[in-house]
């Protein structure tokens, strides 16, 4: 063992010192040397068995007993003391997570007997082999609907990714693609298994490739429930939705110590890549949940909205909320003063079934609201400008947030309902230098290429280019409504008058004339750019009826290898 330690120390001489994660890992690795993020050395616990006493060679036990033993060992992961350590950190084990995520007794495990194949640094010893290695994989059901799951096991070598680990994940992803069922990944891994070297890296790439191939074929959800660093972060980044658990999960390319040594910034791992950072600042994650239990139960709820694959229609749930319900509160929701804000979420909650709205990225780019809901039991994607935040303008972040959501809906046959109250794109050097032109184009592109049913409701402002972008009639909107409070115009009255009547007197009069002419839904309705001007209280009833009709909508884009969205 001493030899092994020395060898390992040697292997790490080049590694930069990185202490942050170690506090967390130390409980699991008694002999752990300094570790760099994104790469974890499989620590070698002292083995209990004398060398040479291998099950295979001893043959003292029958095959049946050996099977039983392996299964039993597999269920214990890295052993009781590591399970306890995992619990102590407020985290569940890989198997507990799977059990809670799936319907009771629906989990069918695969590759329980797979072990890593590394023979360096003492890894070949029996004591360093764990049946199933550091990931639990298989399939199961959520509310009776098929799903494939992998759950990384932090108690085995810190959940580090070995070749075998990657192979297990790839296997279930391939199957999921074949049968057309979503994949949910529960990530809790220190990174690559350093002892395996390039085999581990190859494993990552195998997974990345499958993430890309599955993209748009089956929904992919990542739930980050522990560390996820280095190259490993790109798997969640490639999936459709990334959820995080507050206080226990981190996503970053390099940890705080590397950051310090390279850029001389002092930052904690929570600040650098915690749930709050990624759900409010970076927009990497789509939702953060309080703890493991909360997160898993919410993913179950979320799963109910999704179709199993791009060949499936979104599920229809029995609806107890009358589809012809009039929503009187909507008649008064838009304030009289056009400058006054209101909460778009109030409109969404009042319109959809049972006020049940699963908001995606609720704390990022809050000037646009996106999420899933149901109308008369059918899943719909909701997009709405949020007048409460930055007047609901479109900027870089909100455009990208909206675009990605719209494309997900389009890929998976989920109708899109758009509520429009947008004063335009946000001006300024920050936006222009940041590339608002190409980012704004993403949202435009996404709405334009979408062939799912598209229903648009203009609640108030629809100004300028932003009007065009927000699922307008011109971008193949199927049904476009305007509320009586709608104003479809190139810009607000004040700005327009200043340009049209520059330097002239009677600006106030001209402004009044402009308001009279354009600050209402008529110019758009006259031209057929909105199909009807509706009482807000009838919005729900109309959308439900329209969706029924549009359920059989068929629209194809011209053949192409793939489109070229402005990235």
């Amino acid at each position, binding site marked *: 063992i001493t030899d092994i330690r020395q060898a390992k120390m040697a292997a790490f001489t080049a590694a930069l010192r990185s202490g942050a994660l170690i506090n967390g890992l130390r409980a699991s690795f008694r002999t752990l040397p300094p570790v760099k993020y994104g790469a974890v050395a499989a620590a070698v616990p002292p083995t209990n068995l004398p060398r040479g006493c291998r099950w295979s060679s001893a043959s003292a036990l029958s095959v049946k007993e050996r099977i039983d033993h392996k299964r039993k060992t597999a269920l214990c992961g890295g052993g009781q003391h590591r399970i306890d350590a995992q*619990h102590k950190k*407020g*985290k*569940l084990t890989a198997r*507990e997570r799977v*059990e*809670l995520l799936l319907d*009771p007794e629906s989990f069918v495990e695969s590759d329980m007997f797979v072990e890593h194949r590394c023979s360096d640094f003492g890894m070949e010893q029996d004591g360093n082999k764990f049946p199933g290695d550091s990931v639990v994989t298989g399939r199961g059901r959520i*509310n*009776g609907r098929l799903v494939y799951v992998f759950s990384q096991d932090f108690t085995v070598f810190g959940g580090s990714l070995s070749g075998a680990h990657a192979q297990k994940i790839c296997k279930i992803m391939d199957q999921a693609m074949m049968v057309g069922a979503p994949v949910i990944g529960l990530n809790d891994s220190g990174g690559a298994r350093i002892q395996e070297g390039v085999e581990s890296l190859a494993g990552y790439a195998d997974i990345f490739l499958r993430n890309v191939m599955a993209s748009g074929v089956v929904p992919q959800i990542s739930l980050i429930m522990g560390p996820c660093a280095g190259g490993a972060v790109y798997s969640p980044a490639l999936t459709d939705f990334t959820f995080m658990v*507050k*206080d226990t999960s981190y996503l970053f390319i390099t940890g705080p110590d590397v950051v310090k040594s390279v850029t001389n910034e002092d930052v904690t791992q929570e600040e650098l890549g915690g749930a709050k950072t990624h759900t409010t600042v970076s927009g990497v994650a789509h939702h953060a949940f*309080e*703890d*493991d*239990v*909360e997160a898993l*139960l*919410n993913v179950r709820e979320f799963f*109910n909205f999704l179709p199993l694959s791009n060949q499936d229609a979104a599920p229809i*749930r*029995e*609806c*107890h*909320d*009358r589809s012809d319900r009039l929503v*009187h*509160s*909507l*008649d*008064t*929701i838009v304030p*009289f*003063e056009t400058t006054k804000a209101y*909460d778009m979420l*109030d409109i969404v*909650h*009042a319109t959809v*079934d*049972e*006020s049940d709205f*699963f*908001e995606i990225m609720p704390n990022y780019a809050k000037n646009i609201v996106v999420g899933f809901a149901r109308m008369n039991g059918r899943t719909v994607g909701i997009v709405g400008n949020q007048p409460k935040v930055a007047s609901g303008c479109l900027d870089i972040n909100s455009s990208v947030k909206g675009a990605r959501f719209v494309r997900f809906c389009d890929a998976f046959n989920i109708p899109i309902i758009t509520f429009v109250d947008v004063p335009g794109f946000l001006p300024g050097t920050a936006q222009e230098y940041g590339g608002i032109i190409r980012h704004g184009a993403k949202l435009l592109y996404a709405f334009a290429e979408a062939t799912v049913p598209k229903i648009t409701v203009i609640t108030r402002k629809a100004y300028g280019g932003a009007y065009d972008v927000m699922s307008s009639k011109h971008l193949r909107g199927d049904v476009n409504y305007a509320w009586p409070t709608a104003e479809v115009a190139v810009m607000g009255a004040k700005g327009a008058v200043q340009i049209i009547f520059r330097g002239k007197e009677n600006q106030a009069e001209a402004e009044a004339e402009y308001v009279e002419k354009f600050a209402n839904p008529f110019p758009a309705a006259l031209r057929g750019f909105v199909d009807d001007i509706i009482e807000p209280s009838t919005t729900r009833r109309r959308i439900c009826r329209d969706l029924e009709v549009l359920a059989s909508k068929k629209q194809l884009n011209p053949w192409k290898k793939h489109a070229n969205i402005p990235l």
Partner: protein
Amino acid sequence: MAAHRLSPSLNRLLLAGKYASFWTRCCAVHGYAQYSTACSPNEKTFDKILIANRGEIACRVMKTCHKMGIQTVAVHSDVDASAVHVKMANEAVCVGPAPTSKSYLNMDAIMDAVRATGAQAVHPGYGFLSENKEFAKRLAAEGVAFIGPDTYALQAMGDKIESKLIAKAATVNTIPGYDGVVKTVEEAVKISQDIGYPVMIKASAGGGGKGMRIAWNDEETREGFRFSSQEAASSFGDDRLLIEKFIDNPRHIEIQVLADKHGNALWLNERECSIQRRNQKVVEEAPSTFLDAATRRAMGEQAVQLAKAVQYSSAGTVEFLVDSNKNFYFLEMNTRLQVEHPITECITGLDLVEQMIRVAKGYKLQHKQEDIPINGWAIESRVYAEDPYKSFGLPSIGRLSRYQEPLNLSNVRVDSGIQEGSDISIYYDPMISKLVTYGATRAEALASMEDALDNYVIRGVTHNISLLREIITHPRFISGDISTNFLPEVYPDGFKGHQLEADSRRELLAAAAALHITAQLRSQRRAPSVATRCPCVKVEVDGQWNLASPLLPLAINGTHRMLQFKVRVLSKLAAQLNSYMPEKVPEDTSSLLRSPMPGAVVTVSVKPGDSVAEGQEICVIEAMKMQNSLTAARQAKVKSVHCKPGETVGEGDLLVELE
């Protein structure tokens, strides 16, 4: 998405009560009012009345006007432009921006509205300009009728000091106290010592509990004096105060009077309004359990004497404090329609608004004293947008995302001026509605109230339904053993929500579980059919499982109950695993002073670097016209101040940080 763990949310959200055939009654008695508007066609009153008020009382007045064939004019502030009272009126005039001083108290604008619409009379409702003699004078000068008493009575009774002198002269029992205006703090202390503690300091021009403080010693007198004069100044524009003996543990019982311009006056029996918090009424009933016929008559006759002494006309209320020996003392006379007038209408069958309009036109009273009955029992609960867990109710604001009045039940009257989608703002009174139930007996009225509270759906703002339900089901309340100290005596540590007993806990758990399973089965697209078995005891739960309805009528072990739920149920496995989940440590708040409610900062008494003692006042927040002193939770040094006087703050906003 909100994750309510089972136990605390159950305590708070439990609204389980008896439920009687909810669905079948839905269509039965909409808009049933418990008073009859007699409106004789030969009695011409006015063609058009302007209602100088907002909210439920404006709607209430308009209802009668419309029955009498009178056109109505609403006035409103700009934020109220789409309010219910505006929609209900035949015409509406905007009288200014949101703050009441610029709109509903803006006499110039309201006079303009009267002129512009050609209204022949103005009903002022309660509050605002209802007891403002200047307003009445200006109307009179333009030949517009003020639906209320004439200016003399307004003036005489509007001033607490003068009213007491007049009452004394009219041989009405009065409370010992200082009959004059108190000008300085030191004078207040001296007078208080002379009268003997405890004393009550109140605004001379006040009413409705505003500008009122009780003091038990010199220090409290000083503080009370300061507060009351500030509140009085901001609420009534008049900071004069008076001091009187405070009667400990009294009942608050008031007599409704009705008088015409021909010297006739009636007493329409009493209302008991003892259930109060911070001198504001919460639950009222008519008649009172406490009065015998002789006392009732004595009080009624004194009330009529007083009304006659000031040549009172219109509806008015004479408030008395009644001690445990049934001695009663004149408190004040309210020269307007009271908030709680519906319960008098319920037991007497009179429409007080109609009577006020008739009297204002100069007609004689139609009734004689012996015609005034006490028919049955009526109870009123004031439903407020308030957090009852904070000193029995601190104002909350928000948008009523869901709102459903229990009008499907019989014997229920709801007076409200809001609807689903309405905003409860910081500018106005946080009252949502007045929920009135009545019955042949008090027990019947109480049972109806319990049902009605269970069936009341309010979402989007914090409300006090849970407190109301606790009060009306409390044994002391049921037995009639109440006083104005009821709330602090029954809940000395503040209201903590309904405390479940083992049985009801089990039943509730069963119902929650059944609901959860129903939702689960629906997600699995299976037909929901659920009966739940709790550990040890079988609890049968059956019902119509409409998962979209906010109300869940259930039969639990055969008893009908109406439930409103927002719970998250954990499966056995989830609950087990939940034990591994870390407790999230909440932010240490003892060093952070946050605003407990939305409102405006009146004063900030500290600056960074100051040392404060525990309990020392740090700043004062005014919300809904009430001043609330915020104090230091511990001895500390002030680190930073994040607010300044005049600023508007939201609930939870950081005001001051301590070191």
